[in-house]
Every structure is written in structure tokens, then in C-alpha cells.
């Protein structure tokens, strides 16, 4: 039997990522360097090369299972940017944390490859494959500090809950398959447009929503986030808070806008509830946190809630707003984590007391990221929120936006508390920082992007990234 080789052009970025990663795993064993920095540099190089290749590799392949279009390309950019920033802030940090193993960088690469597959999958099976590739890598990453009990706990918790959510996803997928006889999202859409809405279909859809909500850490499926964020090494936390979340939104967009298009009324109603609950839980619980990483965990939950508004809008405009939002969020959140990593002790919120006296520049940068996360112009965070709100209001969900701005005002309190500690509280102990060029580069990139997008948003908005070829 002669099976023709499918067109590999659209999937070349993923192939390169995988091959390089496997090669790194092998090479790393034979190299006896003290540091593993060179691995990270190779990863960054690969990521840049892949970014360069993505626009040239558009197309559909594997019998319609794999789509590389404007939509997936944009998400892949977000993943790769967050990968590059993560590696930049990791270099010296993982040495400090005794977590410098060769597989650290490989796992980051594998996780990113998984996300890229998720963003491109037009088939639920392929989607599941990508999701598991990402998830399994992230479970190990969470526990990469082998001798740290918190890290172990984080990995175990993440793994157990993640396994549950994967099972629920599979259940949803199989029910959908049973009802529509297909796992291809376009064929599912065709089928659903003709048929009646059955209760089984709704259950299947709700199960898929639950699994995706777990990935984006949306309430009430957010319980893992604070513990995992706290336990994992900070650089990994930074990666978690951006990459997997963006990947979750990528598949939500693809699956709900195409496969379940005819059920839009139903999933919108569910997502509105989820979004409001997520914003409430994230913002209100963040207020009482005393640990910086836990606070940022709840803040990232809250941001997932804002981003969901764009999905709720149910329009291309809304989807584009979500994509822009995630890109902006990647920069500002990575920046905030870069500062946490820069400090010797940055875990406790009290550690930031009087930071402006000992390290004014660090404090000033943190101030910018905090205001950006709050959404105050002229920072990028404002543009992101504004974009989302515009899309939601245009789609007629003004009341949801009013709820969102109320929670947004609540969020100001905990971000401002960091600023308050840094600038207005007396210094308790001289904070020690570990500056290094890589971390500095990550900070500089984030800072510049926060300001550039904030002042000249035209660089990121205004393009429409269609899902279809």
C-alpha cells in the first residue's frame, strides 16, 4: 500500500521544535560543561528561527487535521515570546535554585511544541495530543526542584488535577464523537448545524468547557493554580501563567467558534457565569494574599476572567481582542515575574518594603508592571482591557463589562499595595538583587513593549486574524 507523504510545510515549525529538543536531550548527556547556559541559548535561537518560519508555513495538512492560519500563527508567536522570556529569566535563576538540569530547557521546548500543536489542531484528537504533550511537560517542570517539598507537592497536585481534567476532556470528546461521528471540528460543526440540540450534546460541551477552564485556571477550576504557582520555581511559574493559559484560549476559540458555533447561546451563557466567577474569585482572594507568587496566581486567574469577555462577545473582533490581550499580558506578567526573580527574596510581599530606597530602578520598573496589570494608561494593560471591553460592548454585553470594571477597580487595591510597599513603607532589610544580562534583557523587552503598545497600540491591534484559510 502506498500512502502519500502529507504536505509537511504547515507543520515545519513544530517539527523543528521537536527535533531540536530531542537533540538537546541527547547532547546534554555528553557535554560536561558546568553550566547549561548553552542549551538555553540554543533554545532561544531555535525559537527565533521558528518565529521567522511561521509566516511562511501557512496551510492545511494531514487531511484537515492540522491548520496553520493567521489565528494559530498569532498564538504561536505568543507561546514563543513567552518561551524566550522564560529562558531569559531562567539562566542564572535555576542555578540559584538548584534546579539546573539539562531537561529543564527541553521540557520548556516540549511544552511549547505542545501548545503550538494545540493552536493549530483542527481535530479533537490532535488537540488532545498537543494538550497532553504540554501538560506532561509542565507537570515535570512544576516539580523540577527535586529536593523541595513544596515543588513536589505542586507537581503532584498539578498532575492529579490535570489528569482529571484530561479525562473529562476525553469524555467530552468521545460523547461528541458519538453524536456527530467525527472528531474534525469542521465536520462537527456541519453536523451540529443540521441536528437538534440534545441534552447529551450539552453535557459533552460542558465537559469540554470544564477541561479548558482548568487549563486557563478559570474559577471554579482554579484551585491548583495558587499552590502550583507558589511551589514551582518562579521562572516556571512565569511560564505557566502565560503559555498554557494562552494555549487554553487558543483551543477555546477554535473549538467553540467553529465546532460549537450553533450552540453559541448555550456556551455564552455558561462562559458569562464562569467569567464573572473567575473575576470575583481572582480579584477578591488576591487581596488577602501575603505571598507574591500566590498573589500573582490569583491575579492571573482574574486576567483569565477579563480575557473570557472577548470569547463571550462571540465575534471575530472579540477573538482578536483576546489574542491581543494575551500578548500584552505575556509581556507585563513576564516583566513582573522577572522582578520577583531579580530579588534574592521576592516571595513575600513584605520583602518589597522600601525597595525604592535600596533599588529605585527596580522599584520603578515594578511600578510600571503593576500599573499595567491594573490597566492604567499609558501602559499596555489599558489597551488590552480597553480592546476587550470594546468588543464585549459592541456585542451587547455591556452589563458584563460593568461587572468587569468593578472587579478591575478592586484589583487596583492589591497591585497598588505592592507599589505602596515599595515606595511608601520604610525599608526593613536591605534587599539584595541578582542582576544579570539575560534577566535585564527580559526586563527591558517587557518594559519597552508595555510602553510601546501602551502609546502606539497600532503595532498590535487593527489586524484581523481569521481562522479560515
Amino acid at each position, binding site marked *: 500500500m502506498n500512502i502519500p507523504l502529507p504536505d509537511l510545510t504547515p507543520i515545519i515549525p513544530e517539527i523543528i521544535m521537536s527535533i531540536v529538543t530531542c537533540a538537546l536531550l541527547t547532547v546534554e548527556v555528553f557535554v560536561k560543561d558546568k553550566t547549561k547556559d548553552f542549551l538555553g541559548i540554543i533554545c532561544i535561537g531555535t525559537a527565533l528561527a521558528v518565529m521567522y518560519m511561521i509566516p511562511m508555513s501557512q496551510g492545511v495538512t494531514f487531511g484537515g487535521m492540522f491548520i496553520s492560519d493567521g489565528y494559530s500563527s498569532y498564538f504561536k508567536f505568543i507561546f514563543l515570546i513567552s518561551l524566550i522570556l522564560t529562558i531569559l529569566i531562567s539562566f542564572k535563576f535555576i542555578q540559584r535554585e538548584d534546579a539546573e538540569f539539562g531537561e529543564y530547557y527541553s521540557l520548556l521546548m516540549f511544552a511549547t511544541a505542545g501548545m503550538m500543536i494545540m493552536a493549530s489542531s483542527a481535530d479533537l484528537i490532535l488537540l488532545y495530543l498537543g494538550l497532553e504533550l504540554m501538560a506532561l511537560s509542565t507537570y515535570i517542570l512544576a516539580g523540577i526542584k527535586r529536593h523541595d517539598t513544596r515543588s513536589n507537592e505542586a507537581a503532584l497536585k498539578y498532575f492529579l488535577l490535570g489528569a482529571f481534567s484530561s479525562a473529562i476532556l476525553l469524555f467530552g470528546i468521545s460523547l461528541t464523537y458519538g453524536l456527530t461521528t467525527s472528531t474534525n471540528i469542521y465536520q462537527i460543526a456541519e453536523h451540529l448545524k443540521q441536528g437538534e440540540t440534545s441534552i447529551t450534546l450539552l453535557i459533552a460541551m460542558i465537559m469540554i468547557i470544564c477541561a479548558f477552564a482548568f487549563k486557563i485556571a478559570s474559577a471554579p477550576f482554579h484551585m491548583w493554580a495558587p499552590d502550583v504557582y507558589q511551589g514551582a520555581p518562579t521562572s516556571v511559574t512565569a511560564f505557566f501563567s502565560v503559555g498554557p493559559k494562552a494555549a487554553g484560549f487558543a483551543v477555546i476559540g477554535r473549538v467553540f467558534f467553529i465546532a460549537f458555533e450553533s450552540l453559541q447561546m448555550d456556551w455564552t451563557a455558561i462562559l458569562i457565569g464562569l467569567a464573572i466567577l473567575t473575576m470575583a474569585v481572582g480579584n477578591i482572594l488576591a487581596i488577602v494574599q501575603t505571598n507574591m507568587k500566590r498573589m500573582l496566581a490569583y491575579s492571573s486567574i482574574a486576567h483569565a476572567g477579563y480575557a473570557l469577555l472577548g470569547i463571550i462577545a462571540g465575534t471575530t473582533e472579540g477573538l482578536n481582542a483576546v489574542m491581543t490581550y494575551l500578548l500584552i499580558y505575556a509581556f507585563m506578567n513576564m516583566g513582573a515575574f522577572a522582578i520577583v526573580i531579580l530579588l534574592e527574596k521576592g516571595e513575600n510581599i513584605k520583602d518589597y518594603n522600601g525597595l525604592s530606597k535600596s533599588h529605585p530602578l527596580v522599584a*520603578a520598573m515594578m511600578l510600571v508592571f503593576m500599573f499595567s496589570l491594573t490597566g*492604567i494608561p499609558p501602559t499596555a494593560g489599558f489597551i488590552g482591557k*480597553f480592546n476587550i471591553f470594546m468588543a464585549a460592548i459592541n456585542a451587547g454585553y455591556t452589563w458584563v*463589562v460593568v461587572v468587569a*470594571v468593578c472587579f478591575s477597580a478592586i484589583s487596583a487595591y492589591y497591585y*497598588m499595595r505592592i507599589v505602596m510597599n515599595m515606595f511608601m513603607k520604610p525599608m526593613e532589610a536591605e534587599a539584595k538583587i541578582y542582576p544579570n544580562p539575560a534577566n535585564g534583557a527580559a526586563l527591558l523587552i517587557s518594559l519597552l513593549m508595555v510602553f510601546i503598545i501602551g502609546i502606539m497600540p497600532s503595532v498590535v*491591534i487593527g489586524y484581523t486574524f481569521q481562522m479560515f484559510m
Partner: protein
Amino acid sequence: MQTGHDSHADKQPVNTIARTLLYVPAIIAFVYLGAIFSVQIEYPVLSWVIFLPIIGGFLIFLIPRKHEMLARATSLGLTLVAFILSLPLYINFDKTTAKMQFTEVHNWIPAWGIKYSLGVDGISILFVLLSTLLSILCVTVSWTAITEKVKEFYGSILLIEGSMIGVFCSLDFFLFYIFWEAMLIPMYILIGVWGGPNRVYAAIKFFLFTLVGSLLMLVGIIVSYYYTNKSFDVLQMMNTTYPYTIQLILFWAFFAAFAVKVPMFPVHTWLPDAHTEAPTAGSVILAGILIKMGAYGFLRFSIPLFPEAAKAMAPIMIVLSVIAIIYGAVICLAQTDLKRLIAYSSVSHMGFVTLGIFALNMQGIQGGILQMINHGIVTGALFLSVGIIYERTHTREIAHYGGAATAMPVYAAFFMIFTLASIGLPGTNGFIGEFLILLGGFMAWKLMGVLACTGIIIGAGYMLWLYQKVFFLETNPYAHYHEDVNEREFLTLLPLVVLVLWIGFYPNALLSFMEVSVQGLIDRVNVSAQQQITQNIIEVIK
């Protein structure tokens, strides 16, 4: 400055005045030459006046920490240049048209139809000039008072100045909102870092109050964007007639932001804390300009965009204003803290402003705008004065003062003029503003006009009581006044005295600027109200 203690104390005021007056011709010459120069060269006035301080503010952060004097001098230079650059607005302004002048339009974010659009008319021009003037005084009054983190302090002041002017000049709603919110960042830092003992609480309270209001306005802005055919252009919005229910909703959404800033009665509680705890320069900016942004918002946006809703809601606004007038004044009587008393008097005075604005007639609105300028001058001056004496005594308790007039006669004279202007004595600027507002208020609603008058009476009560407690009576053992005002402080207060008297005797100097624009605003309200009545009649006939 050299000052003789004790034995030479009696000669000192004369010396100061004499020495200071030597500077005055130099300053007049500087401003005059600057005006001639700036009028002759062609440049985009508004952009320069906005971005010179903002860029300068960032540049000041780059000055090495040890060069404190350089930071002070740079910021003084920048505020002076910004003031000089703003003079063409005064000289070249065409008073015969209600159109926007000095306009600048560039594409900014084409995807959302957002333009970088600036312009001033008779309503906004005076605030720009007031901002540039008061900023200079904020720099000079903080010269010796701020010793910690000097460059950050002056950087913040410059950033605030630029954004405030931006708020008054923006003709694009998105741009307006950017400036409106961006100003919160330096202001939060200014109060929280250099403020009084309770500064952290005051700063976060100020921030959260303003943010909630602004975010609701943001929703309103986006809604009106879609009703204006996807445009943030304010002038285009002014020519759009929104459905009545939408007008009502949007009016209240905007009210949330503007009422907090003014502040109007139920949402005024951030103001006493923020004004009291802020450093002197912060209080001056807050009282002098920042809270005017709220009332300006009513005039620029709420009324012309939603004229029918404004007309319908005017009675509620008037009642809230009168409550603020009386409530603010009565609370002043019970204050023991110098700055807090002046802060509460702001609540009362801003009540007059909103009363005038929502009287929706020529006298009321003109009086309202004039009173905003007056309040900026007078309350700004009072906060400057309090800052000057606080630098010597380090107490704000009224009970710790007494007999200051003997030790500081020149200072006492300045304070007297500002006190009388605050009360509204004829001959000072306060009288003109309040008189016009009451005239307008009577025409709109007689009872409320009468009630508002009691505010003036109580106002005279607390201000004179304050003056008596601080400057007369026995010299308080707590008080260590040391010395009278020095040249720097004298020159800081002098321009404000000139303005108080100038506007008091010749109000037309300012009124003439706004007359045509205000007439245009009133026409807009009346015409659209007429349309509404006609529509109602048609519906009834049908």
C-alpha cells in the same frame, strides 16, 4: 537669604519687600520678552505645552541623585518655559468664535478611529494657563520643603502638569481618557511618598475613588463610541443626538467619574484626606487644578453631549450642589486641622461651581467657570500659605497657632487677602464668581439660590475664625515662627495676589474669553430641549 533674628525682626519685612521688588521688573521683563518671542515663532502650542513637562519629567529621573539643586533648577526652568510657551494662547486667542482654536489633528490609532486631536475654546483655555502658572509656584514652594527623593518629586510634578493640560486640551475621548487616568500614577506617588503621617491611607483612597468613577466613565465612552458611528471625536459627538434613555444612562456613567473628581456631595470623602495628607505642592495641584477637571468634564462632555439628560437631571445636580455648599461649610466650623479646614472649604466652593454649571444659564455657567479659576487661585494660594508656615512650625493644628501676625506681618497680610477672597469680599475675585453663580442660581431655582447664600455666610464665619485663631490672640508657646516670608515665598504668593485683585476689579479680562463659547453651550442645551418638547408635542398630537 539672610535674616536678622530678634533685634532686627522689625526691619525685616521692609527689607524683604524692598529686595523682592527688585526682582519684579526682571520677572515682568522676562515674561514680556518671552511672550514676544513665543508669539513670533510658529509651533504647535498645545503639544509643546503638554509634552515639554512630560518629557522633561522623564529626563529629570536621569539626573544623578546627588545633584538635587540641578533637579530643582531644571524643573523650575521647564515649568517657566512651559508657561512662556502657553502665553500665545492668551494673546492670540480669538474671542469672537466658539470654535476650537489652536487645533492639531493627527491620525493615531486608525483601527479604532482614534485621532491625536487637540484644541481649546473659551471654556478650556483659562485652565491651561492656570495649570502652567500654578505649576511654577508648586516648584518654588517645594524648594526647601522637599529634601528626600528630590528628582522623583519634581519629575512627578512635571508629569502631572503635562497630563492635566492634556485633559483640558483633548478633543478625542480616548486621548482624554489616557491623560485623565495617567495622571493618577504620579499623583498617587506624590501623596503617598511625600505626604503627611496618614499619607498611605489617603493615597490609596484617592486612587480607588477616582478609579471606580473613571472606569464607569470608560464604559460610557465605549457605549457612546458605538452610538457615534465608531468615533471618539468629541466634536462629532457634540453634533450627534443620542436617544433619550441612552443619554440618561451615559449621563450617570459620566457623572460617576466627574462627580468623584469635583467632588460632589456623596462621593467627596476622599478629598479631605488627600488634600490634608498631600505635600503642599500636591495640595495645590489637587485643589487648584485637578478637581476642576471634574467640573470641566461636566461642561465639555456631560452637558453638550447629553443636553436633554443634563436638563432633566439639573434639579438633582443643583440639590446635590447646595447640600455640598452647606454641608462642606458647616463641617469647616468643626475642624481643628488647618489643611483639613481648607480642604472642606473646597467641597463647599466646588458646590458653588456645580450649582452655577447646572443652573444652565449664561450667568451661572460663566460664574461657574470663573469661580473654578478663582478657587484655583485662592485655594491654591491658601494651601501655599499653609505650606509656608508649616515648613516653620511643623504642625497643622489650629490650636498650636496664635499671634502669628506679630511675628510674620507680611505673611499675615498675604493670608488676609486670600482669606477675604475666599469669603468673596467685593474687590476680590471670589466676589465676582459667587455673585454670578448666585444670580444664575436664583434664575434657575429661587429656593436653592437662597440656601446657597447661607454657605457664603458660614464661609465668612469659618475663614475669619481661622484667621483670628492663627494670626491674632496671644502668641502661642507652641508656635515657633522664626521668620517672615523670604523672597522666594514672597514671589510665590505675589502673582496670586495680583490675580485676585485683577480679576476682582476687572473680571471682564477673563469673562470675555468664555462668553461666546458659553453662549454656544447654552444654545446647544436649549435647542435640543426645544426639539425634545416639539417631539413630545408631536407624539401627544398623534
